[in-house]
């Protein structure tokens, strides 16, 4: 069950002093399991959470998250 939203959270965590999932979770007010689910494309965050994650990395939203509906359609067809 993967979403059509891809993200670069892992990359930006690495670029921000190898921030842990737990640290990012605490800074965005969610659980580590939710960060793990978002990173592995198993859960699409709400718009508010996506903005909070982007704010932690001081990046625009579209730099962290991107929408790929065609990939999701392909995976459903398979």
């Amino acid at each position, binding site marked *: 069950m993967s979403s059509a939203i891809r993200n670069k959270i892992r990359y930006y965590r690495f670029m921000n002093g190898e921030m842990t999932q*737990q640290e990012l979770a605490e800074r965005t007010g969610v*659980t580590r399991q939710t960060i793990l689910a978002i990173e592995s494309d198993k859960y699409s965050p709400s718009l508010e959470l996506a903005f909070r994650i982007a704010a932690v990395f001081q990046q625009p939203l579209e730099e962290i998250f991107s929408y790929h509906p065609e990939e999701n359609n392909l995976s459903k067809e398979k």
Partner: protein
Amino acid sequence: MTHRSKIALFSIVGQAAVFFPLYRTVRQATDAGIPLEAQISLWAAFFLKLLGLSVAVMVVGTILLQALLQIRSKESVFTVTDERDRLIEAQAVRNFCYVFCFGFFFGMLLVVLGQPASLLFHVLAFSYLAAGIALYLSYIFHYERGY
């Protein structure tokens, strides 16, 4: 397996452990051929005891299991409940309602078809158990596979 999945798994076992001894007791009493009014009273007591004991077992068991998991993993358990948890909870409760409603209306259908009224209570009891299992399996499914 996530902590929440482990607690959901424990809840299934706990629910079954509370249900079957209570059910066996009421089954033995109703099989003795007592009048319907007395049976209704027994079933009412069964459902109230089932609810009370289930809540007590879940609360005590969850606290103990959380403490155990926290000691073993050295990671705080359930510090926050976030948007994903709420979505999963809504999905799980929806599944609970579907299963219980199915059991409820199936029980009513049996009565309409001329089955004894006492059968309704058996169906309701098992639909409550099945709905509870569906609830916790939904938690496990969504926490393990994603939402």
